[in-house]
């Protein structure tokens, strides 16, 4: 029993299209870890039969919406959950086709690990490149390349080595740190949960073992202290008459009581008096904890302000360089204004310039065609009405990311990573 309470959480993303075995792989992970329930399986079995399929279509487990089930495609991001005694896993399962880039970006935005599937018969193809580029742009800390359908290439090591080599050549152009390769057959189960007897030449771990053991402890930034204030807590009761706490989720670093802090944008300085949680006060708190901070001095602080350590501050910027992923069907209009959201702060913003459009199959920078529509990724310069306190996305995913909201429709139209 104790074991269950001591697990870590790992979020991973997969992307893929109809027949590359993604659904089979997820189905196998869920099934072999006993995370599929019998009534779910029954329902899927019945639906498969009604559609005249001979085998149970595990894709029906992940495709939840009526349209997806009818068309047999994944449209939106589907979240799936499974657990082993070591870790709890959240899968962001996304479609792989280029017209769903925005969904892949969404799924990648919170992932610790990207699972990239390669069909051993086809090798590195355009879709592999696209998924890897997205993983690199979104700075997913770990990539696991599963070379799938090994059973269809007679489990040959040469095939695996060749694909691995091709991928490494391509990935050298990308900003990826930790890449591992695993030869698998999702259909037959080789090296997914159980070690394969068919590939004795492979000395690495199975996929599940890798997912269970990959080191995610340093995925959060624990160096640069950033605390965006969400809301101010003032109980105004007799018991807590003078209590004034700043509630938020630590976006980076480790805060300790007694730390010298600066509040942005006012620049006022103070010391941390206490770091409070429901159970009492803690001596230190780190990302991604939700806490309430009280200060020694009475300073005017409100939502959107950021508490940082005085000796380590983010950059204050009104001109922001970003890699933008355009999410909305309506592209950016000339001179149009947006609300930019960054941590808990917002401001008005304007896209001043599109520098180039990125071809996400080849990394080619197109400086001629800068016409942006849904699913395009581009580098842009954004001007905001007031300074934001930013880090580069590379340094901190929380303080380095923004979204743009259309002022007319209120829709989230773009997501950006600060360079």
């Amino acid at each position, binding site marked *: *029993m104790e074991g*269950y*309470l001591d*697990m*870590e*959480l790992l979020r991973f993303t997969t992307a893929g299209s109809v027949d590359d075995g993604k659904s089979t792989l997820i189905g196998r992970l869920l099934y072999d870890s006993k995370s599929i*329930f*019998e*009534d*779910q399986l029954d329902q899927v079995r019945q*639906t498969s039969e009604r559609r005249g399929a001979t085998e149970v279509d595990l894709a029906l*487990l992940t495709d*939840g*919406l*009526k*349209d997806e*089930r009818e068309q047999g495609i994944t*449209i*939106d991001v*589907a*979240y*799936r*959950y499974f657990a082993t005694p070591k870790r709890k896993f*959240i899968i962001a399962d996304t479609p792989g086709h280029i017209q769903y880039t*925005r969904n892949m*970006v969404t799924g990648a*935005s*919170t992932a610790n690990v990207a699972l990239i599937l390669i069909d051993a018969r086809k090798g590195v193809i355009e879709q592999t490149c696209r998924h890897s580029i997205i993983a690199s742009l979104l700075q997913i800390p770990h990539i696991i390349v599963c070379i799938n359908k090994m059973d269809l290439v007679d489990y040959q090591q040469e095939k695996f080595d060749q694909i691995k080599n091709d991928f490494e050549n391509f990935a050298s152009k990308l900003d990826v740190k930790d890449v591992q390769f695993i030869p698998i057959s999702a259909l037959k189960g080789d090296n997914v949960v159980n070690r394969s007897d068919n590939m004795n030449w492979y000395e690495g771990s199975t996929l599940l073992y890798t997912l269970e053991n990959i080191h995610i*402890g340093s995925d959060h930034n624990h160096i640069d202290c950033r605390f965006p204030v*969400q*809301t101010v807590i003032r*109980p*105004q*009761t007799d*018991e*807590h008459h003078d*209590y004034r706490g700043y*509630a938020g*989720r630590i976006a980076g670093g480790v805060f300790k009581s007694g730390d010298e802090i600066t509040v942005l944008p006012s620049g006022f300085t103070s010391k941390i008096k206490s770091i*409070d*949680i*429901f159970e009492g006060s803690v001596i230190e708190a*780190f990302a*991604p*904890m*939700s806490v309430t901070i009280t200060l020694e001095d009475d300073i005017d602080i409100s*939502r959107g302000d950021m508490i940082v350590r005085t000796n380590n501050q983010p950059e204050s910027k009104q001109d922001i360089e970003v890699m933008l992923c355009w*999410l909305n069907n309506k592209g950016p209009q000339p001179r149009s204004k947006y609300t930019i*959201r*960054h*941590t*808990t702060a917002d401001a008005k913003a304007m896209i001043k310039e599109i520098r180039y459009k990125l071809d996400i199959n080849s990394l080619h920078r197109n400086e001629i065609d800068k016409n942006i529509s849904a699913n395009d990724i581009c580098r842009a310069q954004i001007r905001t009405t007031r300074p934001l306190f930013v880090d580069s996305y590379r340094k901190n*995913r929380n303080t380095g*990311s923004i*979204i743009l*909201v259309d002022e007319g429709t*209120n*829709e*989230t139209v773009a*997501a950006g990573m600060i360079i």
Partner: protein
Amino acid sequence: MKNYNLTHLKELEAESIYILREVAAQFQKPAILFSGGKDSICVTHLARKAFHPAKIPFPLVHIDTGHNFPETMEFRDNLVSELGAKLIVGSVQKSIDDGRAAEEKGKNASRNAIQTVTLLDTIEEHGFDACIGGARRDEEKARAKERFFSHRDEFGQWDPKNQRPELWNIFNGKQNFGEHFRVFPLSNWTEMDVWQYIMAENIEIPSLYFAHQRDVIWRNNTWLPVSDFIQIEETEEIINKKLRFRTLGDITITGGDESDADTLAKIVEEVAAARNTERGNRADDKRSETAMEDRKKEGYF
């Protein structure tokens, strides 16, 4: 180097607290949709932690079908008085009496579907711009596609194909007049997480979740509790069984599971070994393959 890792429950808790605080900050008039089930109890517990030492800044809204387990109502009233929270009750009976909703007829009649009318009327009457619910993505396939901040148009409807993208931890609660949001802080929790958390935090839950003796009939492949609200046919036999409920909905649609689990530890063990989903015993989900998606589009929980 020190190990700055959170356990999965602490990380989920931190995420949910963050969401609840975003709701308080981004909306004018948010409310918690409180059913008396374990998930809405968990949400309420998290809200208490999020704003401590202040009170929960949301009223609890209960959509009362009138077909309740008496235990749930007692639990609700105790919790509300303990929290010092405001309770708002939307009555399905009143919607029927006012001619806003029509009662289903027949043996399997339930008030599940017509709750939506009362829910949307209550939201409009009080002008709620965000309703916090305990729904989880692992519960049901349509819910797996749900956002944390889920937009509803002026008719209270969900458009699953046109949802706002949610990236990182940045949530967009901006809305036009008359629209509202449903917010799901437990999106990333599983049934197991909820039970582990209830155990770890020692959260009080209605006695119905623990194994107890009860009069039931066998109908639609489940043990349905005998109450004033169901018609029992001559062929149906009333049996007294030891069982517990894995979810709590209306007494007319919530089937029990035979069980000896009378402590939280035993429940966690039972959930770990379970081979059926918790909603497997919910008649409301069985009406069609896309029953949940269809109801959600109309504005259901």
